[in-house]
């Protein structure tokens, strides 16, 4: 994964957006039963929560005051029962609610990941991988907050508050109304506090982002800071940012420091009111002592739901922003669609034809101009050209990674757009310049993974393939042979070994067409010879189209196509083209001639001459 970037991405959306909300609640639909159960349990919990103080009241008034030992014991048992029930209900509620939330997240992640599989390559060229990963992981987790601790909890808080209010009114409505006098104070204090704290924390977050961005930059560029002798100045800047952060935090402490005492004071006010006004009522005989005690407990429970409710807004806000990003991604339509009645032959012949193909990654900037050529079944064709001539693009187009604007690409005389995409790709095996290895075992990297429609090659044939391309010796030298795990994209393997693995991967599929973008990096002579031999076996009896960087490859090709700045400039066999003394002749001297020398001197290392060219 790429290193995390520290900057303040604080794109908070609206608190509530009806369109988004409706779409999000669509995901709740399959879980109607669970949601209903969760809500019922929530109601139970709220009701039981209210019961405690009421039981206290009964205890004091009916049993303690009456001196009824027996009744008191019974009541205590009831109380224990209520508590146990409350425990069970609350636990079940949390479980069901989280189960549902996690299930929805699971569904959403599957949907996003599945959507990625359908999108075309040009989408991935435009969107950085890091951002897409965030959609499928972090953004989804933010939504989880909404479901599990957001919406349903809001109901719970409202129920609890309503229950307390109802119970108080039930016991004594006058005293209840007097006690409620503190609720507006509590709401106001909480609202002001949350607002202030939100502002303060926004400042704190900006400050910490500034610190971290600065820190990251300085750690990355420490050599520059040190060489240019700017340590003191950078330290001073860091100290300033650090100071801003500290001061912002000290401000936020102020609000906390004021808020908690204020809440306490409001609580004390409630107790004082209950004592004073309740006393008045007791004197008039309208109220019992137990009721006074119960009221004191109820008043203590106002605060929690009110504070919780105000916290939910932040969650709603960030969930809306995340859902907006997710839906935007899901709304991207795949631009490469399967033909409704696709061509799906059992076995292809392996004929390739480009007919007047013009293609541009960015409109108005074509990389291929009017390219036409034909490769007969079983023919070996090499494509050569300087960097940027469009060689690799031809390969991408063949397997329909991109859609062309003009011309036609035909396989066995059928336009690739009419082919069943899976069938088309099953006929061809592609080996790219950078061998991409997945985390998994060596075997998995050769076989890749099975799905119902596309079974992976069986272990026997993949071993045979590995043997054919000379990959087996080094695989067996690994600690666990085929079952060895590949570390970090194959960093433990040499470049040559990775290539051999990729060859095995291609050969194991026994494709009709082999498409190969030869790597340019240098490989030691011994491995180079193995690769050359492996390549030869790989191409045997198949149509092959190779972007060639090896002298041996061009020498053994039936035909060479010379590409220059997106156009085909020359075509013919190696000898014919050399005799022409044209573009190919120059290219040959530049890219391939050294390999001849190297092979004779058998000292190797000359592959690097090419890398030197590629750098330019």
């Amino acid at each position, binding site marked *: 994964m790429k290193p995390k970037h520290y900057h303040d991405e604080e794109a908070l959306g609206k608190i509530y957006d009806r369109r988004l909300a409706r779409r999000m609640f669509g995901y709740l639909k399959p879980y109607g039963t669970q949601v209903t159960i969760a809500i019922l349990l929530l109601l139970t919990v709220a009701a039981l929560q209210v019961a405690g103080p009421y039981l206290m009241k009964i205890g004091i008034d009916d049993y303690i005051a009456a001196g009824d030992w027996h009744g008191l014991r019974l009541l205590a048992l009831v109380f224990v029962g209520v508590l146990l029930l409350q425990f069970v209900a609350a636990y079940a509620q949390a479980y069901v609610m989280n189960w549902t939330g996690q299930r929805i997240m699971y569904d959403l992640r599957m949907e996003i990941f599945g959507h990625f599989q359908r999108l075309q390559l040009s989408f991935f060229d435009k969107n950085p991988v890091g951002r897409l990963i965030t959609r499928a992981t972090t953004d989804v987790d933010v939504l989880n907050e909404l479901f599990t601790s957001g919406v349903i909890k809001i109901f719970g808080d409202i129920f609890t508050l309503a229950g307390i209010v109802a119970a108080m009114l039930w016991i004594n409505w006058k005293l209840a109304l007097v006690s409620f006098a503190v609720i507006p104070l509590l709401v106001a204090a909480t609202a002001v506090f949350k607002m202030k704290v939100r502002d303060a924390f926004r400042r704190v977050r900006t400050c910490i982002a500034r610190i971290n961005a600065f*820190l990251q930059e300085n*750690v990355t560029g420490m050599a520059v800071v040190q060489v240019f002798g700017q340590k003191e100045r950078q330290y001073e800047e860091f100290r300033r940012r650090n100071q801003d952060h500290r001061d912002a935090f000290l401000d936020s402490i102020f609000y906390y420091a004021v808020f908690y005492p204020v809440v306490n004071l409001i609580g004390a006010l409630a107790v004082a009111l209950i004592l004073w006004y309740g006393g008045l009522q007791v004197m008039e005989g309208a109220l019992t002592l137990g009721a006074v005690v119960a009221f004191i*407990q109820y008043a203590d429970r106002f605060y929690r739901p009110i504070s919780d409710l105000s916290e939910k807004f932040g969650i709603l806000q960030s969930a809306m922003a995340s859902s907006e990003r997710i839906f935007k991604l899901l709304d991207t339509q795949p631009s490469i669609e399967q033909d409704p009645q696709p061509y799906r032959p059992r076995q292809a012949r392996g004929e390739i034809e480009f007919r007047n193909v013009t293609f541009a990654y960015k409109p108005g900037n074509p990389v291929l101009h009017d390219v036409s050529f034909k490769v007969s079944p079983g023919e070996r064709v090499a494509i050569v050209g300087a960097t940027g001539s469009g060689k690799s693009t031809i390969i991408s187009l063949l397997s329909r990674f991109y859609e062309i604007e003009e011309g036609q690409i035909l396989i066995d005389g059928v336009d690739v757009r009419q082919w069943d995409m899976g069938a088309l790709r099953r006929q061809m095996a592609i080996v790219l310049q950078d061998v991409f290895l997945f985390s998994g075992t060596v075997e998995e990297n050769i076989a890749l993974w099975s*799905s119902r429609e596309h079974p992976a090659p069986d272990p026997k044939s993949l071993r045979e393939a590995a043997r054919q391309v000379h990959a087996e010796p080094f695989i067996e030298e690994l600690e666990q042979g085929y079952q060895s795990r590949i570390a970090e994209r194959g960093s433990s393997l040499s470049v040559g070994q990775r290539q051999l693995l990729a060859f095995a991967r291609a050969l194991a599929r026994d494709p009709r067409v082999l498409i190969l973008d030869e790597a340019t990096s240098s490989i030691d002579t011994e491995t180079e010879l193995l690769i050359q031999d492996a390549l030869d076996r790989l191409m045997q009896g198949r149509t092959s189209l190779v972007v060639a960087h090896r002298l041996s490859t061009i020498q053994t090709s039936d035909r060479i196509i010379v590409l220059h700045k997106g156009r085909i400039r020359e075509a013919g066999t190696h000898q014919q083209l050399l005799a022409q003394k044209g573009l190919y002749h120059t290219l040959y*001297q530049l890219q391939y001639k050294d390999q001849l020398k190297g092979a004779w001197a058998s000292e190797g290392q000359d592959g690097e001459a090419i*890398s030197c060219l590629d750098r330019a």
Partner: protein
Amino acid sequence: MIKLPRIPERIRHLGHLLPFLRPYRRSMLLGALMVLITNILAAASPWILKIGVDHLTQEINLNLLAFYAALILAASLAEGVFRFAMRRILIGVSRHVEYDLRNTLFHHLQQLSGDFYQKHSTGDIMARATNDLNAVRSVLGPAIMYSLNTFFTFVTVISLLLYLNWRLALLVLVPLAAVTLAVKFFGQRIHQRFEKIQEQFSDLTTMVQENLAGVRVVKAYNQEQAFIERFQQANQEYFDRNLSLVRLSGAYNPLLTLLLGLSMVLLLWYGGGKVISGVLSLGDFAAFMSYIMMLSWPVIALGWVMNIFERGAASMGRINTVLQTQPAVRDRDTRPLERIQGDIEVQGLDFAYNGAPVLHDVSFSVKAGETLAVVGRTGSGKSTLASLLCRLHPLPDGVIKVDGRDINSIPLEQLRGAIGFVPQETFLFSDTVERNIAFGSPQAGQDGIRRAAEVSNVRQDIEEFPEGFQTFVGERGITLSGGQKQRVAISRALLVDPRILILDDALSAVDTETEERILRSLGDELQGRTALLISHRISTVSRADKILVLDRGRIVERGDHEELMKLGGYYAALYEKQLLQEELEAG
């Protein structure tokens, strides 16, 4: 018994915090005093309530009742004032210590040399400076405050309860003690399960990342469906792990409610009985109830605080390993030179990174004012050579001399002050173009900055930006092309008016035409300066006084352009290729 010695072991790293706390010891004492007063006042309210309720059971005097009510308010107000002071002082101290600690950490990072940054990734360092620092801060602030608060609450409230009725007190405290244990127990386990979720989360992320990065292979080999199935498995595992956390954490709050409720039941049952038998008054009963409610937060906090201490200690350990790393490159027995002229002499230089040899027996010398060029393949050791001249890595004595003096004996500041360095990987700060150019010479004027940009051929580019030299570079500003970045970096190096200018492959991203222009204007600029040009291109190096060809850490050819061409080796071959290259580009 076995567990006891382990706790101090784990907590020991927190000892490293003591020096940071020392400057604030007065404040901490004052804060502790505030906590004590707050708690005494807080304990007063239920006591007043007790008197009030007792009063209700007798003949009621309304005035007296109003007086008690007012007293409760007054006590709460007074408590509030002290609670405010307590929070401000104690949490404030934690923020001050955090500030000091972060400054110290940054300052220390600045002293560390290349070998440290090679061992530790940026992500690793950032994790220490953010997550770990935060964990330590939690110890300093909330953990210390709540520990004190819990301690004083226990002392005051429990002694009052014992005074009221010690049997009842012990009885209701049993479930409360269980709360502390439960919080501690759950806190640890929840943390563990949470880490398992994080692990799976990172697996999930890796799978998405691989799938997207390897999209060509995925598509070419029809792996879409297979990946969906694999992702489904990983996704299911993530779901399962989340649920295993829920099974535990879902019980957490209900359990606390249950235990606190049990305390109330015990009060009702046993305390109620005592009221009936007349041992306790109803006011005592109500006071007990209030005190139990008062204890509920401190008993939760206690378990919580213990976990914070443990995590904070582990984090402090990680921060401390950075703070205790000695800078490998620093001044020892140095004497400044009067003025650096720019003679460089390298004698028998061997160098290895983590045991892998990079440079072998490299020797050469450059006279002040001369230009030396180094060519060679990727990985031949050219860049290492450049960074060693800047002493970015520790070096043995006597192998590199500047003006005849071992560079280890020249103060770093003087040495680096004489060098203008353009590293291979261009690094610009997210700041304005102008401040980037003036990075090494903050006192430089507008004219100087513009002239430096002129020489490196980037002035025109910059002036075409929307805000010219004030344009922001980087994520929040405009993205410069590779060539523009390199040229800004060259301007930055030129502006320090260096005696020695080192360009490490600094023109690789500009086209040949621009390169030619830059080289021409640099030509005048290099008059009287020593220059080290590292490049792949013949055009960059051909005019140098001396050219070295490096291959796998050894010098294999040396001489000027003419001599090397005559030699017919690597250099001559490279030259030939570049001619062909130009021909091809023209064709």
